[in-house]
């Protein structure tokens, strides 16, 4: 066993906020994250904690899409006329493709 005096300053204080933040409940068991050795289980528990224990965890991608779609919308309006021409052309081609795929 390690000498607690020698390791003074290295042993986490079980009452410190940092330590308590890493105490999680999983399957009804409360324990410190450091006790979980299995890498898969640890990753799942960390994910649950990161989600705030919600079962959806895509806030980041939502934000990314919002920024992207706003940018794309501006870009789309800027090039609308060009796109309409392209789109008409594409629709004609698409009818041909419909025939192809129907008979696939």
């Amino acid at each position: 066993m390690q000498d607690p005096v020698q390791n003074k300053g290295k042993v986490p204080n079980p009452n410190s906020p940092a330590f308590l933040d890493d105490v999680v409940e999983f399957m009804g068991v409360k324990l410190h994250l450091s006790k979980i050795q299995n890498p898969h289980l640890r990753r799942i528990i960390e994910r649950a904690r990161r989600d705030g224990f919600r079962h959806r965890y895509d806030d980041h991608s939502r934000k990314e899409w919002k920024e992207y779609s706003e940018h794309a919308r501006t870009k789309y309006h800027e090039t609308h006329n060009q796109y309409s021409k392209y789109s008409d052309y594409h629709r004609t081609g698409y009818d041909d493709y419909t025939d192809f795929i129907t008979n696939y």
Partner: protein
Amino acid sequence: MVVKPAEGVSVIVKATHGCNLGCGYCYTHPNAEKGVMDQGTLENMIYKVASYNHSSRGVDETNFVWHGGEPLLLGVDFYREAVRIEISIEDHLFDNEVQTNATLVTPEFLDFFEQHHFKVGVSMDGFAATHNANRPYANGQPSFDDVFASLMALRERKLTSGVLCILNKNTLPHLEEIYEFLRERGISAKVNVQFPAGRALDTKLDISPAQFGRAMIKLFDLWFYDAREPTIDIDPFAEILYNLGLARNTEHRLESPMGCNSRNNCINSFISVVPGGNVYPCGRFAGESAFYMGNINADSMEAIMSSKPVLLFQQRHTQGVQSCAPCEYKPICNSGCADQAYLMRGSVLEKDGFCPGYKALFTHIEMAVRKELGGETHARPSAK
């Protein structure tokens, strides 16, 4: 109790049932519509579902899963048009996913997916021998080399998180080799059992619920006790661990489990639209006339979402499946997949036909996790 965020309807789009592969287990219904989705149906679908999610669900976000058949047969211009329509709807977010056999991935598709933030799921049944046995081209030629090359190209651009792998008589004897093949290459996977429907009824490649349970337990052990880098995710194990862990908690308990099969009342979250605009509860029911919910061109979303199949699914949800009432895994399973109940037990008001396999798997996983957590347990909450 964890408050579940508001959720909109996600759409599994089967814009074509055509496919260039000839998989022995394809579950596409023999009556599934021919042809492809036209421009008008595409527009109606995107506008109507987005509008419904906004006005009836209070959610400004819609998820489209482009499925099939093989969705890439439609060509990149079909998806350009879909994105053009999505972008024209202000203040609404769209999430696009494609589930493909990956034989038609071109540099043009790669650029498009990257530019428009599409997530791409690839169907690949393990390594060359198992994949080619299950998923040859329609002319019988092997498809593995093409699929694997596309998977690597998609991964290089961070467009895919893994593969979908089917458990049946061809893959069952090779679980260890399949797991090693995926792990060595850092490929995560979702494992689904073969559905007893469509062409699968003739090829007899299906496995029994007991075989399914044993195979999943074996695969779980291969994965869970393997700490070698790189670690990979295997679903539904990650989902089951997550659901089980939170369902047994005293604080932060889970209201509704993750995962397609175990959701509460999945019809509230998913619909499927087929080429001509007909709507069904999910892709697995496409073509089943008893589950026809309406047509996206002719009917309002309000009418579709209050159609007979919705009421039937709600009955499954509110009354619950009688035989599941005493089961301790009910909170994370919710009687499983309604389609597997319908196909194997004749009614969506029954439990999933693979129930014995799932129950064995849940029990095994719970014991494994409790051991890892040090054996200290709280009393399990009894199932409602």
